[in-house]
């Protein structure tokens, strides 16, 4: 038997078939069996039907990306096939989950399809037999719907599929039984257990033409939890004392908004679903102004509406944390597909010389720690902080040791004074508190603030330029002092970040000749590709950039100085990070090329490998799903 490779299991069907929940349970069961897991979601912008799939990758080594292709396909058929009596078919959609997925199935892979749904003609029409022979696939037709019907309802064919998978892959079904037993009750539970058992038995009885199985779990040293990027952002916010969230639903931001709304009341916090995104950001500003750590967020189009309140937070120096969950644009773009196309929008939106902190975490752990840091900086420095991530990181699940989240809460509201401190603070001749003090006593650029209701702390906050007590002022001298002080915060924050453990993540041999630069959710995929490249004899290292503003100038200069050439890999069509690096560092235009993917699917490790080799070679990519832009000079 060959070395057990990572299992990359893809379950495909229509939206509404329970693909998502089934895959989550599947991932959790494999995690409990002692494997590391990683999930990748692909879904259309519709409620029912269409084509959706989730991949669960599981292995004993680190699994930090979806991997290359996949090696096990379970197709359930489209949800419209659930009620055949209703004639709710569109074309041949019941076969779609099978036909749409075969292209990426690896050689020697396994296919389970639902014989109960697909007629012989359907299967003949897609030349499955021929293609299987060509690619060495092992095809297992099984009447999943029949098994489901026998004990319960059609929809339980997902459980049947899981049971059959377990048998084909030598996975102990007890892990699935446990999840069904704990997650369901009554007849539902009994029926699902029966379906699982029957399918498992059937899977054992059929002749196995394949000769590989899922790796047996080596086990974990400590308790693991299975979390998405959105879970981690939400929990980071809660642990940092965030007790107010306001939002308007928009995919994929809705995820954080939902998780926060469901959990904040348990922590005596308040969640508000409001009329639009302008209001959402404005509410967060109002709550923060009144002394509560607050957060809002959206995705591209909704974030565009927040541009105006974002500037207000900057000018009034009101702490604010915004989440930007990117999806493909422009405009409403592709609602359920990831892209990193909002970078420039996030960095520069709003009028004037605006200042803000922008972090782009790369994985679940970074989502947690950088959200906490975003709150800390926003409240200490009275500046908006944005956590930018994308639809990929929003929904993908990974296992993380539980102890990672064993962090003390931080309720420190930052640079807010107590009433005693206000009494001793600088006051105007009118008895007004100097909220926007030109030269804060500690030599920093942060003028400590008061909040409404505090005795002696009265001031005026205004989006207009203002003097020390907050009154509107167009005095040129005051203007320059206030602008310099607000903008000076970014230098202070950079200094603080440079003194701490870096948010940038490095991978590969330090003395490598070539570099790959990436950001956000693509980081760990790039790192996996770097390993493949070095194994293949190249000399490559990579950096995942998380601090987008203030920019880690020293770190990035060092990295770029140390390599002959760097490829910037990102999910957009115009090379936004590459442009940002050039702008921030003022050089390296001749040292960076771009590898861009913007077809709605994130990079796979092999894309990076291919793209990197191309960059060294001809500049012509062998396929059209990526774009290569050579170095252009400064």
């Amino acid at each position, binding site marked *: 038997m060959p070395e057990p490779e990572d299992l990359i299991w893809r379950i495909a069907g229509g939206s509404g078939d329970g693909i998502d929940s089934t895959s989550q349970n599947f991932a959790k069961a494999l995690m409990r069996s002692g494997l590391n897991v990683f999930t990748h979601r692909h879904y259309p912008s519709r409620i029912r039907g269409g084509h959706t799939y989730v991949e669960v990758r599981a292995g004993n080594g680190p699994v930090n990306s979806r991997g290359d292709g996949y090696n096990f396909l379970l197709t359930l058929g489209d949800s419209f096939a659930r009620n055949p009596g209703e004639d709710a078919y569109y074309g041949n959609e019941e076969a779609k989950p099978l036909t749409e997925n075969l292209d990426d199935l690896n050689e020697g892979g396994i296919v389970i399809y639902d014989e109960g749904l697909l007629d012989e003609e359907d299967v003949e029409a897609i030349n499955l037999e021929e293609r299987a022979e060509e690619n060495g696939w092992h095809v297992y037709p099984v009447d999943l719907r029949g098994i489901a019907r026998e004990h319960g309802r059609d929809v339980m064919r997902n459980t049947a599929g899981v049971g059959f998978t377990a048998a084909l892959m030598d996975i102990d079904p007890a892990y699935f039984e446990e999840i069904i037993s704990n997650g369901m009750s009554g007849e539902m539970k009994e029926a699902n257990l029966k379906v699982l058992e029957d399918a498992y038995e059937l899977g054992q009885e059929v002749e196995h033409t394949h000769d590989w199985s899922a790796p047996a779990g080596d086990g974990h040293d400590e308790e693991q939890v299975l979390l998405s990027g959105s879970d981690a952002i939400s929990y980071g916010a809660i642990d940092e004392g965030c007790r107010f969230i306001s939002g308007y639903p928009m995919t994929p931001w809705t995820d954080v908004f939902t998780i926060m709304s469901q959990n904040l009341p348990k922590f005596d916090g308040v969640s508000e679903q409001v009329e639009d995104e302008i209001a959402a950001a*404005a509410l967060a500003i109002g709550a923060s102004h009144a002394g509560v750590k607050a957060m809002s967020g959206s995705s591209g189009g909704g974030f565009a509406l927040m541009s105006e309140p974002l500037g*207000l937070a900057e000018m009034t120096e009101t702490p604010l944390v915004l989440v930007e969950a990117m999806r493909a644009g422009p405009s409403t773009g592709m609602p359920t597909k990831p892209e990193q196309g909002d970078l420039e929008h996030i960095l520069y939106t709003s009028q004037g010389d605006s200042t803000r902190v922008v972090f782009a975490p790369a994985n679940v752990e970074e989502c947690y720690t950088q959200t906490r840091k975003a709150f800390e900086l926003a409240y200490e420095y009275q500046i908006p902080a944005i956590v930018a991530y994308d639809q990929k990181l929003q929904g993908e699940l990974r296992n993380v040791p539980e102890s990672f989240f064993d962090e003390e809460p931080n309720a420190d509201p930052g640079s807010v004074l107590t009433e005693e401190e206000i009494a001793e603070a600088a006051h105007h001749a009118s008895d007004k508190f100097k909220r926007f003090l030109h030269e804060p006593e500690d030599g920093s650029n942060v003028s400590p603030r008061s909040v409404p209701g505090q005795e002696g702390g009265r001031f005026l906050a205004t989006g207009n330029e203002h003097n020390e007590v907050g009154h509107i002022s167009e005095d040129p001298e005051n203007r320059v002092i206030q602008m310099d002080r607000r903008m000076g915060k970014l230098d202070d924050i950079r200094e603080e970040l440079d003194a701490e453990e870096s948010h940038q993540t490095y991978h590969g041999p330090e003395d490598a000749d070539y570099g790959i630069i990436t950001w956000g959710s693509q980081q760990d995929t790039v790192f996996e590709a770097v390993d493949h490249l070095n194994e293949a004899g190249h000399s490559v290292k990579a950096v995942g950039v998380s601090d987008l503003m203030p920019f880690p100038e020293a770190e990035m200069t060092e990295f770029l100085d140390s390599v002959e050439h760097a490829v910037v890999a990102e999910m957009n069509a115009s090379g936004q990070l590459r442009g940002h690096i050039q702008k921030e560092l003022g050089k390296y235009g001749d040292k960076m090329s771009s590898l861009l993917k913007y077809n709605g699917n994130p990079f796979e490790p092999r894309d990076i490998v291919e793209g990197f080799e191309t960059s060294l070679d001809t500049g012509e990519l062998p396929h059209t799903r990526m774009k290569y832009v050579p170095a252009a000079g400064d």
Partner: protein
Amino acid sequence: MSAFNAIGADREIEDEEFTPGIEPQPTWCPGCGDFGVLNALKQAMPKVGRNPDEVAVFTGIGCSGKLNSYFESYGFHTIHGRSLPVARAAKLANPGVEVIAAGGDGDGYGIGGNHFIHTARENHDMTYIVFNNEIFGLTKGQTSPTSPKGHKSKTQPSGSAKDPIRPLTLSLSAGASYIARTAAVNPNQAAEILAEAIQHDGFAHVDFLTQCPTWNKDAKQYVPYTDIQDSDEYGHDINDRAEAAEAMYDAESKLHEGEILTGRFYVDDERPSYTEEKQAIGEMPEQPLAERYFDEDTEWDRSYQLLEKHK
């Protein structure tokens, strides 16, 4: 001891306390109705018994937006049309603070119209004063949502083809629980109505007629001033929605004919405020959110307990 000692301080309040020690020179034109709002608000505060430190005034953009520059309290001059969402979150964050929002007719009924509808619908416990002069003032005289049909301006030189907004009936249908109209030229009524609106538990909307002697000097509503009538005189039941709707419709129809009806149009004392509604369903704690950050005894839970379902 409370973390916010200014809130509920028990003492005699003087209206002079609301005049800033060093007052910035008002940029309002001579004869502007906005002075009337400022004065009425200052006179209302002692009646309400609130001191400047426990009051927060949120304004939008325009002439009206300058209200809190000349009024001594906590102030937040926000952005065009957005005073309400900023204000209502401040109220949720610290219900002890007296929250007043103000804006003009363009600010409140135009660009901020969506926020107006939803803040009224949710019945946030706050007061909203709309300076209604039927014109954009600070941008120099463009047609506003309350300008009468046919009103000529630089941006509508042939006269407006649009019917004006009916702010009172709009407010009623949106869900405000206190609705009144007053006028800068009726200072005693204005101060009384503002005091009452501030004391009302719920969303109190005051449509405040303010003359603009610079850009809208021909507006019928200001000439002659002697024709102002009080709502008490036309005897509808202000607790009755249907009667209030009728009275409002009449008042709004007659406004542009020069007949000005002011006073309380609708008062619903029964409807719980948004804070009370949120508390009743367990989504809003009793202790003010803001207070906990200053309270050393507060125990801050961390998200660790949520991890159970992820195992």
